[in-house]
């Protein structure tokens, strides 16, 4: 039933002279009194964009979409990504005119509704994190990290300190070191781990007056809560450093514990994960940060302020702000969806969401641990990391093979080969918005795969449109865009 022609490339579908009328003819006379643009600035050749009739545009994208797995269509237990249900009510609400079409330079008196909501969102994120200073500005988690590190740098500079090093465990997400480097810090990775936790001794050995920030994901990327996190924070604070909590895993602890309560000084949220963004096939996200009071004056601009007397919302710049890290206010479209989510669940609902996320993960763990090694024990937070190391030794079937074979069963694969500290890692995060039935079906499939003939699994996927793109050759001679056959 596949429509083959509709998934040709747009460029192959193009025929000169086709197309759709979208715009009207001009209704204004030419302003002949004004000088014309010099021809040196004018286009020298027609743009080679494809010409496609609207009906074919539609058929193309409708058919393309069906080549995707997605939360709307499939269980998608991608660890570290919190692929929870994206409520349809959010999409409708985000289309309301003031939300969808406000111009960033529109006067404040025309957008009081929107600003009031963003103000509430700041407060809600402060409450959830236990960190009072919030900036909604960063575009995604990675930019949140970067922004928070700049904030920390400004704080240290303001105190006349020259702290140059950012530390993180080996299990850290790649954005942690990348953001630290971008912010001009020296990166120090802690090699060791104590059963998946930060090794306090190694940490201690690395701490000194050069230490600026220790970045740690909590729950960490193994799905474990860093039980010594308070001690870690003490150690950092003793040497004058700060603790950065990578909040990618906040979905495990909403209303159960707060970064500000367990020693974090700064954190980012991934609104597209924890507060169900959605993910958009790779974005957009939103990465607000929350910081302790003494860091708040350094937060990026703008912040929404509220004059309670006049009941007036306006943009403001913190006293010692690091400035802007992007154009305009922030990823408002995603922040609003996060706001709708928090409003829908309330405090109790957020806690229940986390409880169920953790319950689902532990249940799934209980169902797979007898046929799949789970190196870090049989308790986890919202996700856990299994390992196909033994299977690989025995049969040659790798984590990648298992991941691909799951697609044949109608399930998206878990995150594979991350975190780097676990061999043949399979990182599973079911989220709270999946049913017991789905978890059981998934576990059953996984169990079946683990005892299927190695050839079958290594040949997977068998039911998808394509099977195992050759990435090695692709990287050698990259083809990154279509070009007309004759040139």
């Amino acid at each position, binding site marked *: 039933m596949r429509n083959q022609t509709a998934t040709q490339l747009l460029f192959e579908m193009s025929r000169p002279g086709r197309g759709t009328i979208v715009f009207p003819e001009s209704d204004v006379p030419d302003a002949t009194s004004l000088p014309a643009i010099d021809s040196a600035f004018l286009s020298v050749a027609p743009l080679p964009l494809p010409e496609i009739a609207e009906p074919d545009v539609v058929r193309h994208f409708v058919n393309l979409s069906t080549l995707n797995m997605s939360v709307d269509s499939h269980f998608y237990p991608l660890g570290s990504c919190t692929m929870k249900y994206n409520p349809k009510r959010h999409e409708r609400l985000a289309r309301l005119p003031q939300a969808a079409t406000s111009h960033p330079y529109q006067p404040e008196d025309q957008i009081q509704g929107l600003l009031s909501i963003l103000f509430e969102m700041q407060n809600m994120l402060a409450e959830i994190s236990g960190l009072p200073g919030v900036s909604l500005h960063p575009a995604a988690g990675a930019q949140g990290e970067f922004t928070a590190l700049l904030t920390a740098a400004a704080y240290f500079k303001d105190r006349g300190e020259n702290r140059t090093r950012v530390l993180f465990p080996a299990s850290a997400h790649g954005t942690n070191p990348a953001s630290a480097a971008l912010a001009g810090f020296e990166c120090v990775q802690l090699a060791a781990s104590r059963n998946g936790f930060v090794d306090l001794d190694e940490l201690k050995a690395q701490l000194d007056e050069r230490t600026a920030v220790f970045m740690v994901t909590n729950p960490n990327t193994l799905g474990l809560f860093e039980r010594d996190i308070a001690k870690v924070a003490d150690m950092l604070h003793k040497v004058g450093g700060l603790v950065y909590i990578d909040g990618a895993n906040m979905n495990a602890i909403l209303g159960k514990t707060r970064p500000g309560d367990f020693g974090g000084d700064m954190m980012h949220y991934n609104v597209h994960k924890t507060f169900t963004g959605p993910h958009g096939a*790779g974005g957009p996200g939103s990465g607000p940060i929350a910081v302790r009071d003494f860091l708040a004056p350094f937060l990026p601009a703008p912040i929404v302020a509220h004059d309670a007397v006049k009941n007036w919302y306006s943009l403001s710049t913190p006293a010692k702000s690091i400035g802007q890290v992007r154009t305009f206010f922030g990823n408002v479209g995603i922040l609003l969806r996060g706001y709708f989510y928090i409003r829908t669940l309330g405090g109790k609902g957020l806690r*229940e969401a986390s409880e169920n996320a953790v319950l689902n993960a532990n249940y799934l763990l209980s169902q797979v641990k007898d046929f799949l090694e789970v190196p870090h024990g049989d308790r986890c937070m919202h996700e856990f990391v299994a390992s196909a190391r033994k299977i690989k030794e025995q049969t040659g079937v790798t984590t990648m093979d298992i991941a691909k074979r799951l697609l044949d069963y109608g399930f998206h694969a878990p995150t594979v080969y991350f975190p780097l500290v676990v061999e043949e890692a399979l990182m599973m995060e079911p989220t709270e918005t999946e049913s017991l039935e789905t978890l059981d079906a998934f576990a059953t499939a996984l169990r079946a795969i683990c005892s299927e003939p190695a050839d079958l699994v290594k040949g997977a996927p068998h039911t998808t449109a394509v099977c195992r793109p050759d990435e090695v050759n692709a990287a050698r001679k990259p*083809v990154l865009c279509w070009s007309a056959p004759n040139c």
Partner: protein
Amino acid sequence: MKPGILKMPGFCSLLPNHWSPVIYIGHFPMPYLFDTPEQRRKMFEAIGIQSIDELFAQIPKELQLTRELTLPQPVSELTLQQEMEQRLGQGGTSLKTCFLGGGVYDHFIPAVVDEMTARGEFYTAYTPYQAEASQGTLQAFYEYQTLITQLTGMDVSNASLYEGGTAVSEAVFMAMRINGRHQKVVFAATLHPEYRRVLVTYFARLGTELVELPHTNGVIDPAKCRAVIDSETTAIVIQQPNFFGCLEDVAALTEIAHEAGALSILAFDAVSPGLLKKPADYNVDIAVAEGQPLGTPLQYGGPLLGIFTCRTEYMRKMPGRLIGKTTDRKGKDCFALNLQAREQHIRRDKATSNICTNQGLLALRTTVFLATVGPLGLKQMATLSHQKARYAADLLTKIPGVSLKFNQPFFREFVLQTPLPSADVLPALAVRGINVGPDLARFEISNVKDWQNCFLVALTEKRTRSEIEHLAKALTEVLKS
């Protein structure tokens, strides 16, 4: 959330007997959860616990929150809808006729764009890491990359960055990686002031000197550029049309940069190639843009779309995700992430950028948008915007005391100067149903007299003749009173 229908005194009498309160009290289901009490029991048993608390015993007791978060009470979909219609139902660009510019614009978005990108298979998927389960996304992004190279004439496009401003800074980082120079970056005074702010935030701490190229009557004089650029300069950053709407001699500036071994980075208006030269025509090395005009709603300035392109030789130094065409095991053409070794999840602190989540859905919007409007549509957009801008400028400058700040040809927006402070003029126009701006007084822009009396006026294909004439009438009125 408790079932209100049971809380109201006297109302129980109305309920049929079979609706015994016990069914609902205390077990009003949360909207997106599934587990029934029975299922919960089954799961507890499988895990070997008696209560949820046991799972959270991983968190030291003293760190656990013992109270409920202080947040607004949960609301039903109906309540939220009604409240949000109150708070967000009015406004946006439709509130007043929008002549606002400054990097994002009130362009038309065909319905096809909204409908196609509303498909759950697109917007509820993650980054296409599992190629076989993501061919839809991957092909669409490959098409996006191709469309952007067609639009710009550049060799390579990535699959998006956050937005135009960060794309400029990422371009400077990339230039540093290419020519190894970190000391100095030269940027045009006519660069969007928010892009410039981002540059400052990104590079001030790194000790990079940021040198402003002053403008002369709204554009950069290439001769003056030559004096500033030197062998320590990483790159020159230019904008075309510039923040004032005027046209820069990008070719000359690029040549000067190249002579000094510096790279030429151009931020261009994404609609402009419909009428004006495309970035590659100027021989620039990196071209970036804010992609919002091509199918993305304004959303108070975010999420937007960072377009990022460069020459082939710099491909491996690019920030952000790249989709490549390849073949699968059976030799079938297909698509997959490519050159991932540049990215943070592999290269970590040595990555070409820290970006992970990018702006996928906006790239998809632009793909559908360009496929729908085609070359003719883009030409119309650019030409109509330009023609209407000319008409508006002509009408407005006939008002006594009103003039173009810069005596230069422009593309689709221009700086208007009036005898009164913009802080007075703009609100008076808003009262008359019109938004113009931004008021240029809100930016730190050097070297301009009477800045406080200036503002931008931007046109798109959406503005009608009668709206433009209404603007002229309104401004006349405002200046008289």
